[in-house]
């Protein structure tokens, strides 16, 4: 399952709930304001790092760049573009955590 998150982890609870619900082997894709979760120094980064064993974490590059955070991507997080987003959505069933 591809879990799509679009909100900042310090503003809303969607990443927290998703991490608690998502089954092992799933993929978390951070888009829009959720990309901040995957940046070093963010208070939520540890949660993501802890989940990296059982979930794959991806981030949408264009959203990361728009926010000026491209140079501080958390280690182990995969950066993709919109084409990569489409590939992930084609390979997996999708769920948006709105």
């Amino acid at each position, binding site marked *: 399952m591809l879990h799509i998150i*679009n909100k900042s982890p310090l503003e809303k609870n969607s990443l927290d709930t998703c991490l608690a619900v998502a089954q092992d082997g799933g993929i978390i894709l951070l888009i*829009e304001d959720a990309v901040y979760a995957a940046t070093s120094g963010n208070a939520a980064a540890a949660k993501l790092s802890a989940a990296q064993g059982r979930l794959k974490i991806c981030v949408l590059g264009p959203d990361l760049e728009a926010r000026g955070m491209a140079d501080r991507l958390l280690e182990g997080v995969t950066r993709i573009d919109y084409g990569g987003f*489409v590939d992930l959505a084609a390979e997996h069933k999708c769920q948006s955590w709105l």
Partner: protein
Amino acid sequence: MKFGILVNEGPYQHQASDSAYLFCKAALEKGHEIHRVFFYHDGVNNSTRLTEPPQDDRNIVKRWTKLAEEHKLDLVVCVAAALRRGIVDDNLAPGFRISGLGQLVETGIEADRTVTFGD
């Protein structure tokens, strides 16, 4: 692969419509099919032909119209949500049509994947 797209927020206020547009564009470039883009909740506000954003910013409505023309996209605006928000046929931008919520369920059935963009 056939994608269905659901857009729940209006233009500019939230990034949802932008993200959905860029996703559709990328999917089409990769040779996928977009079964339908369904606009629900404030998403119906993406369909008004009356927006005039500043010259130096993107025109969200026109982008959807252009993409629909180039790829024969089916852009469907939910009638119930549209009535609540004052979106009517007279003001619809080219490429959009107003129809029932059943079209969203149908998209869920017919598309291989449904991807939702919202708040």
